[in-house]
């Protein structure tokens, strides 16, 4: 019996003419994949992006987002670009409240001036504005909480940046919804907060008694500062956590990880469970839209080993792969993971350090678990299918396609420059000072250090 498959459109990175600009390919795929069909006139259309942590430079370029804003408008929709607030997760986090996140987003160029659409935070000032969605289909999660701005939109374009993640291995479209569309309540759920108790410790911080250096650790004050519930005290023989106060926000774990220390971490089997829960949460977001109102796109460019939630980025694990578009969250992420694995190894990246070869599971090697766990979970809960049909798209070079996505249809050399040059032409308006060229036809060789 033939297994149902979903179409994923793909345009490889690389360009040698007008039609092959990443912007042009992205717009072509938007229509090729039928994402315009998600939008009716006057629909409020969310364009969900990861706005990136402060000082991160690998996140989506503003024009990658503006390109899609333009097409949503062309379809009659009213686009707004959006992201949600985060858990506290590290002490210099700049996305925990809407105010902080907006300011950081502004610095990334995610503002009205760049995007020509509002950039708003979907889950309110502190991240608690949400609506609950029941998830009987979920593998682990049976409910989740979606930011109100997203819940209330008529349609949504999931515009992901493909990159790695230390917990979920990979972040693409599933993560963009599974974490990014959740309010704080939703994120606590998806991070398996309070699942079990400190002894079982699925989501609870796991203190590594031998690795924690206590007050000898250069960062022990940061460790104490990192807890918004003031549940941490660092003693000479190690960190002490008050589990009664602990809200499972990840601040201490991630702060420790960010400093390169190993005193507080996660339980090993937390990682695959986190991927499964995330796929459930992504389904929760999709369920807040009517069928046919959700589209997915991803830019597999600047493929850093870690997520845009890091306040820095590592060297890219592969050269730019390309643009993807689909109506199936699982299929698109499956295609992206496969194409990234097939891609060459990024020079000087973690993938090279680990001695990986093209074709091997890059994110499994770098981040300990394969990203395909979230894909399987998404398949099991009905989010989509891992079985994809890849449609490779190459724009055809012809005058019509060349003009299609330019800023104006009439070549500027026809208008206005012909009119301008009739009035005055800098090349002919006056005499340039000339030197005779003859000796230069030989003397130029003196300027070539390799001759």
């Amino acid at each position: 019996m033939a297994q149902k498959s979903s179409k994923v459109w793909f345009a490889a990175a690389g360009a040698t003419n007008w039609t092959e600009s990443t912007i042009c390919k992205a717009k072509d795929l938007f229509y090729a994949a039928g994402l315009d069909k998600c939008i009716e006139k006057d629909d409020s259309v969310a364009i969900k992006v990861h706005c990136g942590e402060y000082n991160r430079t690998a996140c989506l370029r503003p024009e990658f987002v503006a390109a899609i804003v333009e097409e949503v408008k062309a379809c009659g929709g009213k686009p707004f670009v959006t992201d949600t607030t985060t858990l506290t997760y590290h002490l210099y986090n700049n996305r925990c409240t809407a105010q902080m996140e907006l300011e950081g987003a502004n610095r990334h160029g995610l503002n009205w001036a760049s995007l020509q659409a509002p950039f708003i935070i979907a889950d309110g000032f502190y991240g608690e504005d949400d609506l609950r969605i029941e998830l009987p289909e979920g593998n682990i999660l049976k409910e989740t909480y979606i930011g109100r701005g997203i819940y209330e939109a008529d349609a949504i374009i999931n515009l992901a940046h493909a990159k790695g993640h230390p917990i979920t291995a990979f972040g693409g479209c599933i993560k963009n919804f599974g974490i990014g569309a959740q309010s704080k309540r939703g994120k606590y759920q998806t991070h398996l907060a309070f699942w079990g108790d400190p002894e079982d410790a699925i989501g609870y911080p796991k203190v590594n008694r031998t690795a924690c250096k206590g007050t000898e650790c250069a960062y022990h004050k940061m460790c104490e500062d990192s807890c918004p519930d003031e549940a941490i005290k660092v003693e000479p023989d190690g960190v002490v956590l008050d589990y009664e106060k602990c809200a499972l926000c990840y601040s201490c774990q991630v702060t420790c990880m960010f400093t390169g220390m190993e005193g507080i971490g996660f339980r090993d089997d937390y990682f695959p469970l986190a991927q499964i829960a995330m796929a459930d949460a992504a389904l929760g977001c999709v369920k807040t839209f009517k069928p046919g109102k959700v589209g997915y796109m991803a830019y597999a460019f600047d493929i850093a080993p870690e997520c845009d939630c890091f306040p820095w980025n590592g060297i890219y694990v592969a050269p730019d792969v390309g643009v993807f578009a689909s109506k199936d969250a699982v299929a698109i992420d499956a295609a992206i993971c496969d194409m990234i694995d097939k891609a060459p190894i990024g020079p000087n990246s973690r993938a090279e350090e680990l001695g990986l070869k093209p074709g091997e599971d890059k994110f499994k090697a770098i981040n300990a678990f394969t990203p395909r766990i979230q894909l399987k979970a998404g398949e099991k809960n009905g989010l989509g299918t891992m079985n994809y049909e890849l449609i490779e798209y190459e724009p055809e070079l012809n005058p019509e396609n060349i003009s299609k996505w330019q800023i104006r249809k009439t070549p500027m050399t026809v208008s206005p420059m012909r009119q301008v040059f009739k009035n005055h032409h800098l090349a002919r308006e006056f005499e340039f000072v000339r030197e005779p060229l003859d000796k230069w036809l030989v003397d130029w060789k003196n300027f070539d250090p390799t001759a």
Partner: protein
Amino acid sequence: MANVYWIKGRSTHIQNSLISNIDALFRLEELATLVEPDVSLAIKFNLSEIGYGHYLPPVILGSIFEKARTKGARAMLTDGGSLFKGSRYDGYNWGDSAILQGYSCAELFHNQVMQSAGYTNEEGNFWPVDGDHLAGVDIGSLLTDTGNMIVVSHITAHPLLGLAGALYNLGLGFLTNSGKLKVHACLEIEYDTGICNQCGVCLPYCPTGAMSGKPGKITLNRHTCNRCLGCFITCPHQAIRIKPEGIKEYQSCVVEAAQTVLGKLRGKAFFINFIKSVTPQTDEFPFSDNPFIPDLGIIASSDPVAADWATYQMIVQSPGIPGSVAQDLGVLEKGTDKIRAITGQSPEDMLAYAEQIKMGSRRFEMLTGTGAMN
């Protein structure tokens, strides 16, 4: 007894320019203590409806914002959406209206212009009201999680409250749509089919479809009317009126909402009334008639009741402007109540009630100065 500061309206040299006057405000102790480094500071303003022509120049809010930021406060600019289906009804159009009026998000305001009740106008929570008129009201989540607040009000007349001042700005601008509906519930629309000339201008402004049909066959369904006042604001022929019986109740509800909002603020508030371009219409109207009094300057106080009472007294004492509605109504003379003549209401009862429930006092110490003052 609170201080009410009056920075006079005339500018005669650089030291009392508009900007110098705004700088002077920040030297007032009551305001300076609110501008704390690293503490969030909401600056509540009146975003105007597109079509309203006399809004405060953005340089005023821009200067206040910049000054607060320079002092390290985490300032943001905020206002609510509108209950009626105009240019500030949904998040998308609200943003457009802000940009068009010069509240440019990226360049000046660092993306810190935001709706008080979110993109959907419903991001907030229900809070009980300690009062006789409202059981509870829904307040946008921005207010309940902010440290301090500066309420910058553009003074105009208001058809139901008499004065659109600090209490109006405070009481309505932070509510979600659900909250506003509760405050508006006591009002009733009177639709005069005799006067209605069937132009149909009101129709697109009705969010519920209560006012429906098409020119020639317009009807009002009382059961689905949510009293948003969109038809009232937009009718060119005064075919829509508000029944007088509901107005006093409405005024009391606005006061109680204002008190609840103030009570939910974590820190403190300061009120700055700009008596400038004082039009017969509020900023919510999609048009504005010429100002009816000259610019009188800035009234500022930590007491919103005192600020509004002082403002009202100054409007009464001021001459009216020839050629404006003040002349039409024969209230050009100093000492005539232009507010009452234009709207039929006065803010006296509202402010008395606010005083009664201890929001502030109509007795105050008036201090005058200019931008050059220390």
